[in-house]
């Protein structure tokens, strides 16, 4: 924390407070996000509903908190599923070289031949509205970035004298991996992961907005915008809320990633 630049600290603060909102919000709201009271449709923010109610009289606070938690958790799972295999495969490629490396590079290039969103959309076509294809698509499109960075950095590190010395002295692959390679890779991969988290939040909400992500009645930031859009005249503030949360989450991730990446 002390070593972080002010911008990145702000990003961390944003994400932590959003996480706190997601975890505490349901408890603060005290109602189920699906509980409807039609008489309270589009109620403005007030004592009963701190953030107002949506068109079906559901508590916006409860729904937004659930949706925020869902978004951040799905994004985190997606990023972990892309980053961990991607990093390990990248190190493996740099370590073994030869046909292992050639084969993996070929697969990575094949994935890069398609824009990521296209892959996600094609997989989403198998089961629109379900999380699994969305998750698979994002992870499949995402691991390549970690693979390429890990491979490039690991091959540089493996050629460094202290790593070569450790290997010649007979330290096992576990030691070299944990003590010598990963500590060198982690800062860069952390930046990638923070950036990837933002991209995942954005992708999930965007796909849900156009109807190919998570469907109502599940509270999700993108699909909530779609649901509320017809009421933009009556309750402009309420319509803005889900998109504003997406904005804050993505901004937090980008700030946390820092200026290391354009």
């Amino acid at each position, binding site marked *: 924390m002390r070593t972080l630049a002010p911008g990145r600290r702000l990003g961390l603060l944003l994400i932590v407070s959003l996480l706190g909102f997601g975890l505490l919000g349901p408890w603060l709201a005290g109602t189920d996000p699906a509980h409807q009271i039609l008489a309270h449709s589009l109620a403005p923010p007030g004592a009963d509903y701190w953030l107002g109610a949506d068109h079906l009289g559901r508590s916006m606070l409860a729904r937004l908190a659930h949706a925020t938690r869902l978004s951040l958790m799905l994004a985190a799972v997606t990023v972990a599923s892309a980053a961990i295999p991607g990093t390990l495969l990248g190190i493996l490629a740099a370590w073994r*070289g030869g046909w292992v490396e050639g084969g993996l590079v070929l697969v990575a290039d094949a994935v890069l031949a398609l824009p990521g969103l296209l892959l996600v959309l094609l997989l989403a076509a198998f089961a629109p509205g379900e999380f699994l294809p969305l998750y698979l698509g994002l992870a499949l499109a995402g691991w390549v970035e970690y693979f390429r960075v890990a491979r490039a950095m690991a091959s540089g590190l493996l050629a460094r004298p202290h790593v070569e010395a450790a290997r010649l002295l007979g330290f096992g692959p576990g030691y070299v991996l944990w003590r010598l390679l990963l500590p060198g890779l982690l800062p860069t991969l952390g930046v990638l992961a923070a950036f990837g988290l933002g991209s995942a939040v954005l992708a999930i909400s965007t796909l849900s*907005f*156009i109807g190919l992500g998570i469907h109502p009645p599940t509270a999700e930031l993108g699909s909530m915008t779609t649901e509320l859009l017809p009421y*933009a005249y009556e309750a402009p503030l309420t319509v803005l809320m889900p998109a504003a949360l997406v904005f804050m989450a993505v901004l937090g991730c980008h700030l946390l990633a820092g200026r290391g990446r354009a």
Partner: protein
Amino acid sequence: MGRRFLDRFLRPVLMRLVQPLLVALIVGALGFALMAVLPGDQAFRLAAARYGPDMGDAAAAALVRQELGLDRPWAVQFLDWVGRLVRLDLGHSLVTGEPVLQELTMQLGYTLALAGVALPLSALLGLPLGLLAGLQPGGPVDRIMLGLSVLLRAVPAYALGLCLVTVFSIHFGWLPPAGFEGWREFVLPALTLALGLAALSARVARDSVAVVAASPFMAFARWKGLPERAVVLRHGLRNAAIPVIALLGLQLVGLVEGLVIVESLFSWPGIGHALVHAIFARDVPVVQGTALALGLIFVLVNALVDLACALIDPRRARAET
């Protein structure tokens, strides 16, 4: 040695040749799998699409099954599917019954028109700002530009589009929120796309200008007495342009993604909109055709970007050919 050869020489050349084939293969395989796993009998679906829903009876289905050989082993069918894909026989839409290729050519026109307006617009918005910011890193223009870029890139494209519609169509009533007749309909979709792209390109231009401005060869050009104009134009811009153009390639991933989102938002009759609709309707031939078109646009533009980089940077052309 082996790795350098692989990275520097073999891969770029090979990839350019293999990429379109890979795109076709991946999209084709997913399309084939999609067709196979959808519920119901494929032959009935195709028959209904071809002869109208009333004529899609068992006899018609049998005819289709016979004609397309749907009773053969799936490996043979897959090869056949790929073969038809290679000949650009994309089949017929399961919804309208029209040949997919015919629908695609119309949608492609709309998509290219939108991209053709949005890309220059984003360059016009982003590059001068990036240039100004990069000439004085840390200065006021730079700070404002960086802040704007970070903020703008965190706004989801759909929210940006909705905000623009709210302001310009609903509040002021200046521009139509949807439609595709004249130039006025172009403004909001193109602006939505362009703002998202400009946020990135301004940032890239700024970094690359800052690096070049601080470089020894710029200082040397001044020391040897070249007029400032020649320093900036001959030594500065050309060197600063290389990373910008290279990153344009990356930006084009954003363009393809943005097209899908913006076209859906504004009901623009292009390829991205058609793809999303076809996914809803489970219209596999159209899904496959539109995905293929978007993928190939991506590959083609990437190749053009590489070519532009090689043309503008003689070092790179020498290193790679």
